[in-house]
C-alpha cells in the first residue's frame, strides 16, 4: 500500500501542574532525579516544588540583595548554587534549601554559574574574573582579568573551562593553571555553547552572527544573516545539531558530514515573537523553544536540522526559562509573571526513539 507513510512521532503536552513564584522567573531546574523542581525569580526568591505534583516543598526570599542572576543545579541533583547582584554565591542543599556555604566574591555582579559534568567543580563568572570552587566551596582557581566582562562559561572537559568575552574564547586548564587555547574574533560574544565532546565551540555575537570553531582542526566559520543577536544556542546530546535563535525563527545547523559550512540550515518558524529560551531534550533530537509571546513548542528534528512541531502549549507570558526533566517525559516553562508550567510530555513512535518512550 504505497499511500501509507512511516509513522512519524507524535507528541503532546499533557496537563501537568502549575504554580507561582513571587517575581519574574529567570532560572529553573530539576533536582533529586526529577523529584524536585527549583525556580529562582529575579528578586532573589527561590522555590522548590514536588516534581510530580507542584506542591511547594520550601521557599526562601531575598536570597541575594539586589536580585538573583543565576542558578545551577549540581549534576547529582542534591545541591545547587545561586548567585546575584550582591557579589555572593550560595551553595544550598536541595532537600531544605539550607545554605551550606556562602562565597563572597566582592562587589561585581555574579552572572554565570556552571558545574563541571562530574560535579567536582563549580565555575563562577563575575565581571572580568572567573573562579573555580569545589562542591564544598573551597577555592581552586582564579583567572586573571579578562579583557571585558565574561559573557559565558562552560566546561569543555572535566578540568578544562571555556570562557567567552569581547573578542575571544579562552580554554583554561584549571588544575595546572594553564591557558590551553585562545580563539580570537573581533566581536562581542554574547552566548557560547560547546558540543558535548568539547570540540565545536559556537558563539552568538552582538553583530547578529554565530561563530564556530572546531578545536581539533582549527577551522572556523561565521554564520551571518541573523535578524537579531543570537542569544540562544543549544546543542543536542550527540553534538550533531545546534539550534540557534536571535529572532522568532530558530535556525538549526547540522554538523553531519561536511556541514554546516556550505549547507542550508534547518528553519523552524513556530513563534510570532523572538525566542527567549531554547533547550534540547537530554537525549534525542527534540528541541523545546519558548518565546516572548508565551508560546512553547517542541520540535522533532531530522538530521539536516529541519523538523516538525510535535507539541505546543501556552505559558501565559514571556518564557524566562525551559527545562526538560532528566527522563525527558516532562517539560517545565517559567515565565515573566512568575508562573510555572510543567507539562507531561508523551511521544508515540513506531520505533523506540532514543530518549523518549
Amino acid at each position, binding site marked *: 500500500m504505497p499511500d501509507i507513510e512511516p509513522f512519524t512521532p507524535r507528541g503532546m503536552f499533557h496537563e501537568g501542574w502549575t504554580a507561582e513564584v513571587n*517575581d*519574574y522567573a*529567570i532560572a529553573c531546574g530539576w533536582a533529586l532525579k526529577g523529584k524536585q523542581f527549583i525556580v529562582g525569580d*529575579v*528578586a532573589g526568591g527561590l522555590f522548590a516544588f514536588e516534581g510530580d505534583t507542584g506542591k511547594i516543598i520550601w521557599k526562601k526570599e531575598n536570597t541575594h540583595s539586589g*536580585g538573583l*542572576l543565576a542558578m545551577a543545579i549540581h549534576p547529582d541533583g542534591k545541591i545547587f548554587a545561586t548567585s546575584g*547582584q550582591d557579589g555572593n554565591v550560595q551553595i544550598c542543599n536541595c532537600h531544605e534549601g539550607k545554605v551550606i556555604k556562602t562565597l563572597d566574591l566582592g*562587589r561585581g*555582579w555574579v*552572572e554565570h554559574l556552571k558545574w563541571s559534568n562530574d560535579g567536582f567543580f563549580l565555575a563562577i563568572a563575575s*565581571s572580568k574574573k572567573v573562579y573555580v570552587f569545589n562542591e564544598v566551596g573551597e577555592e581552586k582557581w582564579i583567572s586573571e582579568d579578562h579583557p*571585558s*566582562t565574561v*559573557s559565558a562559561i562552560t566546561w569543555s572537559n572535566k578540568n578544562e573551562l571555556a570562557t567567552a568575552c*569581547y573578542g575571544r574564547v579562552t580554554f583554561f586548564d584549571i588544575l595546572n593553571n594553564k591557558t590551553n587555547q585562545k580563539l580570537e*574574533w*573581533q*566581536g*562581542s560574544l554574547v552566548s557560547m555553547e560547546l558540543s558535548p565532546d568539547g570540540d565545536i565551540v559556537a558563539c552568538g*555575537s*552582538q*553583530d547578529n552572527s554565530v561563530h564556530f570553531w572546531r578545536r581539533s582542526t582549527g577551522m572556523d566559520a561565521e554564520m551571518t544573516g541573523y535578524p*537579531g*543577536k543570537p*542569544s540562544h544556542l543549544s546543542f543536542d546530546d550527540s553534538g550533531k545539531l545546534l539550534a540557534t535563535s536571535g529572532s522568532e525563527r530558530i535556525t538549526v545547523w547540522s554538523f553531519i558530514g561536511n556541514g554546516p559550512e556550505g549547507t542550508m540550515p534547518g528553519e523552524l518558524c513556530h513563534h510570532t515573537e*523572538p525566542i527567549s529560551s531554547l533547550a534540547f531534550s537530554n537525549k534525542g533530537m527534540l528541541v523545546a523553544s519558548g518565546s516572548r509571546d508565551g508560546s512553547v513548542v517542541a520540535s522533532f528534528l531530522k538530521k539536516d536540522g529541519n523538523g516538525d512541531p510535535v507539541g505546543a502549549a501556552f505559558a501565559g507570558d514571556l518564557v*524566562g526559562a525551559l527545562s526538560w526533566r532528566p527522563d525527558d517525559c516532562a517539560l517545565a516553562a517559567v515565565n*515573566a509573571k512568575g508562573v510555572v508550567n510543567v507539562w507531561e510530555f508523551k511521544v508515540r513512535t513506531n520505533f523506540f526513539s532514543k530518549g523518549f518512550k
Partner: protein
Amino acid sequence: MSIKDKVPVTILTGFLGSGKTTLLNRILSEEHGKRIAVIENEYGEVGIDQGLVINADEEVFEMSNGCICCTVRGDLIRVLGNLMKRRDKFDYVLVETTGLADPGPVAQTFFMDEEISSEFTLDGIVTLVDAAHIDQQLGRSDESSEQVAFADVLVLNKTDLVSVDALDNLESRLRDMNRMTRIIRAENAKVPIETVLNLSAFDLDQILKRRPTFLEPEYPFEWTGVYDLDAGKYELMLEEGPDPEMSLVALVNQGESEEELKDGAESSVRLYAEKANTLEPGNTIPYGEHINLKLEDKGNKSFILNIEKPSKIGLFTQHTAEEFNMKVIKSEENNSKEMPFITERFWQAEHEHDDEVGSIAIERFGDVDPEKLNTWMGRLLSEKGVDIFRTKGFISYSGNPRRIVFQGVHMLFTAQPDKEWGNEPRRNQLVFIGRNLNEKEMQEGFDTCLI
C-alpha cells in the same frame, strides 16, 4: 510595545568635576514621584540609596565589520537586560557616563540592540560643562567636544565662578558647536528637574510641537545693555566705529534676568525682521521699532532717548557698545553724566569659529525630490558618517501631504512622516553637528535635491 510603554533613559555626560554627581544626587533626592534606576560608570560618591544604583565599567564593543555606528556599550546591554526584568521597580533610567565617554556608542545602543530598543527609549543626552574649565578642555580633548556635540541639553554649570562676559562668550562658542542644544546656566548643578528628564529629545514629533524649529535662534544683534533710567531726556552717544550705520531696537521695561533678556531678545528678533527705519543723528529713538542709526558723520553722533516715567530700557544693538564706544548720557544744564548699564549680554553673532566641531544648518523653502535626497544623504552619511555626530531635521517631500521628520546618530538614520503641512509654507530644515563639516558643499549638495 508603543513608545509610551518603554522606559525612558537619560544619559548624563560631562567631564570629571563638571557636577554630574551633584546633579544626580539632586535628581534622586527631589520629590518627583519617579522611581529612578541609576547606572553609574563613574564610581563617584552617590550618597543616596533610594534609587537603584548599579555600578558598571564602561565597555565599548566594536563589531568585526568595523562600522562605527554598530559600536555599542556592552555594559549597558548587560545591565539594562537585567533591569528590564525588574521594570515594575522603576520607571526611569539615568546613565551616568565617565568624563571620557564617547556618547556615540551609548546612544547607538538604544537603536542597535533589539532587546534594549524593545524595552527602553533614549529620552535625551544631557551634558554638564564646568564653565570655568570647559574652554581649556575643548581645546585638549575630542571627548569633551563630542559630548557638547551630542547634547540635547547643555548645563553650563558653576556659573558663579566665571564673569558674565566670559559666560556669554562661552555660551556663544558652545552654541556654534551645537545649534540644536538647549543651554541652561546653573550654579552647583541647580537646574529644574524637568529640564533634564522627560525631554523626549529623540521624539521629533514632540519636539516640533513644543518648538517649531530645531534651531536655537541666531541673533541679528550682538549686544544688549539694560539701563535703569529716571524720567527725563537722555542722549545716546556714539563715536566712530567699524560701520557707517547700525541697527538697533530699544525696548521699554526690559528686565535684567537671563530669562527676561531672552524674552526681550525674542521680541527684538521679530522686530529686526521688519524693515529698518533710518534715523539721522539728533532724532528721537522710538521704542519697539527696528531702526537704523546713520553714523556716517565724523566725530560723535548723538540720538535722543525720551523717558516718560522711570523705567528699565533695553538696547539691542547690531554691534557691541564697545565698538562705537556707545554711551547713554544724562545731559543737565551744567553737567552731563554717563549712565552705566545695569547689565549687559552678548549674543551669538555669525562669525568664524575655530572649533573643529560645529553645526551646519540648511534651511530652504520648497519641496525636495525624495530619490535625489536619499542618494545625497546616503552618500553624505557613508562618506562623512564618522564625523557627523547628530542630525535632525524636517523635509518637504514633493507630493507628500505630510512633513517628514528625521534624525540620526552617526550613520544610523530614521525618517518618518509627521503632521500634515496644511497651509503652512513648505520648507526644509536640516541640522548637522559634526567635525570639520564643509557647510558650503553640504548646502550645495542639498540644493541639488530641491525641485
